[in-house]
């Protein structure tokens, strides 16, 4: 099977009375000629890399190579300990972990692209906070990564996961939808509810442009990962509560694709428009590159 439509994936999971994670695993076994054990072990190793990146910046401040960003995961972690936050502690923890992954990324540290490096914080942020909650085992979470992968494949094959092609919605939006859908399955939701979570999460990311300052994966990428970890959790809760995405997820994905195509090039990872084109954005760019960079 190929992963191109979510409704097909949902139908197949319902017919076979299995999970989306299991469908993904079956395809992976068939395609790679590796055993289920080998594939799960490989994913487990990646999960350890995610965990390391998620905790690193919370424990000690991590700064980017350019010096433009860093230390925010640590700040949020310290604030969390004060016990005065608006968000529930576990939710805020997911945010701090997500920030950490992208700070590590900007520092040329080791991360797992989920689905891309620029959006690598959302999924690990949420997953490591769930690991710490004690409600789910490492094995459960590793299996749920296959749900996330299946959802990512559908989006990548029918729209895009590249900021240069589809704007930030294609990276941050996809990561948020993958995470929301995966934890709905983890939390006992049906494949249909997984679909709603994808639709809800993605709808809330539509139109998000890719306007990084200096073309660097820092501003606003790091902050967006932190905030969208919270969105993923919220979308999952909405879907598990029974809220439906009135526009079916496959149509939301198509809308994202159409919106991406309609976006001007200045808002698709060129570092020319949006936040990158603000006075501060331009000044920061000059600070990093040492000279005025001609705009194309």
């Amino acid at each position: 099977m190929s992963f191109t439509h979510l409704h097909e994936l949902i139908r197949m999971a319902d017919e076979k009375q299995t999970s989306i994670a299991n469908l993904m695993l079956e395809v992976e076994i068939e395609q790679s000629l590796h055993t289920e054990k080998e594939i799960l072990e490989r994913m487990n190793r990646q999960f350890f890399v995610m965990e390391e990146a998620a905790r690193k910046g919370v424990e000690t401040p991590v700064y980017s190579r350019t010096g433009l960003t860093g230390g925010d995961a640590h700040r949020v972690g310290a604030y969390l300990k004060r016990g005065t936050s608006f968000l529930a502690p576990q939710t805020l923890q997911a945010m701090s972990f997500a920030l950490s992954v992208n700070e590590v990324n900007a520092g040329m540290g080791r991360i797992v692209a989920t689905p891309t490096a620029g959006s690598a914080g959302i999924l690990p942020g949420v997953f490591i906070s769930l690991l710490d909650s004690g409600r789910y085992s490492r094995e459960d979470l590793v299996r749920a990564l296959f749900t996330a992968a299946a959802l990512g494949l559908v989006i990548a094959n029918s729209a895009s996961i590249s900021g240069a092609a589809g704007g930030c919605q294609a990276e941050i939006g996809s990561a948020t939808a993958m995470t929301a859908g995966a934890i709905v399955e983890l939390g006992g939701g049906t494949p249909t509810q997984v679909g709603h979570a994808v639709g809800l999460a993605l709808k809330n990311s539509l139109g998000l442009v890719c306007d990084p300052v200096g073309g660097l994966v820092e501003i606003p990428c790091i902050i967006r990962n932190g905030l969208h970890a919270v969105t993923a959790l919220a979308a999952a809760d909405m879907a598990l509560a029974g809220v439906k995405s009135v526009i079916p997820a496959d149509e939301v994905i198509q809308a994202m694709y159409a919106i991406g195509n309609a976006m001007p090039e200045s808002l698709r990872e060129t570092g020319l428009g949006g936040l990158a084109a603000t006075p501060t954005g331009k000044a920061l760019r000059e600070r990093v590159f040492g000279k005025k960079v001609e705009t194309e």
Partner: protein
Amino acid sequence: MKYQSAFEMIGPVMVGPSSSHTAGAVRIGNLAREILNEEPRSVEFRLMGSFYETYQGHGTDLALLAGVMGYSTDHPAVSEADKRATEVGLVYTFKKEHLGFFHPNTVAVLLHGDRHNVDLIASSLGGGKVEVQELDGLSIRFSGEKNTLILYHADQQGFLAKVSHVLDSEGYNIARLSLERWRRGGYAITVCEVDEEIRGDLLEILHTKVSQLKDVRVVRSL
């Protein structure tokens, strides 16, 4: 190209900051090194406009260098590849050049070893996925995602028949095959992707049984 594997969505494991500007650049360097098949002595990178404009901020230069030195996308020393290159005496240059109508994130790699040279143009397509566009001036496309044989040979009748016969009798399934030549009877390159791991003895057998074959290089899958 459609995405197929769970590890394309959850993965690769890489050093940041960008899957296309960093991880993909490491992979392009890796490909050039594998094709060279010896220790590189010097390398020239020519980057297309948009790739060039942001390469320092994304560490694309370090990633390309790390790649030709054989580091993986998740090697912790990617960020100090320039220092390591100087230590091992690898001479490198970076230039800006319009290479033609390729994906914006495209680079030409000219790699010199003691015995061989490799002249490669490759694009970083996003998510760490890469595609070779040209090899030694011939329009040849492959991704390095599967085990790949690169056969340098004379353009003569029966070449592919002999190669496919050897592969079949040695138990290999051909996943993809493409042949490009300079002119009739001239120099040609065939790229052949197979599903199986490529064993060392295959290269000897190919050299013995396929008279037109001048050289073979192997690119092993990720």
